């Protein structure tokens, strides 16, 4: 692939919109062409800057109420209104959870490898974390707050890095349970996408990966290093999730 074609495809490449063949061709060209790499690095820098929270305008808190009042009367009375919103928001979540539970059960069959079972559990953990407002136990973008929080709750200390500079701000951490043991879940964001990074000791197995897989529409990247096993789970596209993993591994 030449420079002109690469530049034409570079936007779609960094947005994760290319098909596999073109994606790999661009990747290969970038590996050998400093000029195109620079253009790509600039795109990534810009993209990371755009993920800054200060650029996203959240609706004023009273706007929701004003809109609800302007709609034809629904059944809610004033006292039930606050909890009503909450419950309505949970309905699709519960439906999704039921569906995923069925999917997960149908996925777990005898003879399936440990990794498969674990991946299912972690995807469920990821989905669960987005429901019922339980994304984080400790809400902080400061790695020096998140890391000590795990002390005393786990028999290991997960490495915590902040990737805000690359457009993946740390949101917080959470305790989760997978593979018959407590695991650390570090929560990062990319725009509106949530990334759960599960970390736990490797139990003696050597360094491996990263390997990618797709499960129930979520992308998973899995690797082991220095005695720790990492699983990144997100609905983010594979390209950006790989960037995230590269940032973590640095």
């Amino acid at each position, binding site marked *: 692939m030449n420079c002109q074609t690469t530049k034409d495809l570079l936007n779609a490449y960094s947005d994760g919109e290319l098909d596999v063949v073109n994606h790999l061709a661009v990747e290969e060209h970038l590996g050998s062409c400093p000029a195109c790499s620079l253009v790509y690095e*600039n795109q990534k*820098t810009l993209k990371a*800057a*755009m993920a800054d929270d200060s*650029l*996203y305008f*959240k*609706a004023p808190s009273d706007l929701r109420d004003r809109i609800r009042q*302007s709609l034809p009367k629904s059944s809610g009375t004033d006292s039930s209104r606050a909890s009503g919103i909450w419950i*309505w928001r949970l309905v699709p979540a519960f439906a999704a959870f039921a569906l995923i539970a069925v999917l997960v059960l149908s996925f777990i069959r005898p003879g399936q490898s440990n990794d498969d079972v674990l991946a299912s559990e972690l995807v469920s953990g990821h989905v669960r974390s987005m429901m019922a407002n339980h994304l984080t136990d400790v809400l902080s973008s400061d790695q020096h707050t998140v890391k000590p929080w795990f002390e005393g709750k786990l028999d290991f200390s997960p490495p915590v890095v902040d990737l805000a500079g690359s457009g993946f701000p740390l949101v917080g951490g959470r305790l989760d349970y997978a593979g018959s043991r407590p695991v650390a879940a570090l929560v990062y964001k990319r725009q509106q996408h949530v990334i759960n990074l599960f970390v736990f000791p490797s139990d003696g197995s050597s360094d491996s990966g990263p390997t990618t897989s797709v499960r129930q529409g979520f992308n998973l990247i899995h690797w082991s290093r220095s005695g720790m096993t990492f699983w990144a789970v997100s609905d983010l596209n594979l390209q950006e999730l790989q960037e995230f993993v590269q940032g973590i591994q640095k």
Partner: protein
Amino acid sequence: MLSKKKTSDFEEQILPHLDAAYNLARWLTRDAVDAEDVVQEAYLRAFRFYDSFHGIEARGWLLKIVRNTCYSWLQKNRGHNLTTEFDEEQHSVESHDPETALIGKIDSQMLKRLLDELPLEFREIVILRELEGMSYKEIAGIADLPLGTVMSRLARARQRLQTSLGTYAGGESK
């Protein structure tokens, strides 16, 4: 009874996307108060059209209505000329690649100003892609554009932002 059900369904499916609606309206109108008005009007429209909602992609469905409401609001209140604001020829001079690296952390206030200065037709695509994380196909649906136009506008908008940021950084270091 029926209308009660419609209202509660609507609140359950469409109201959770209020932040996305407001964010888009805020970027398109560039004004906090106007954005609230537009979002409120868009929600009323959305409620009226709710029967045509097929239950999937609620956010995209709502954002299309917000976007159209913004456009008619801008036309009415600011005499916004929707066809000639961005002259392709006039801006083509900028279309070279920045040859230096954008270094360090980009100042977000600066970036916000540059985004505000982008022509409406380009701004909306950048916002939908970078802030809402929507796919090219979804954006094409919302802005009612061919996929190729979405891609070329996105590429040009990014190039323009990079050029401006490069100039800004270069000017500062002198």
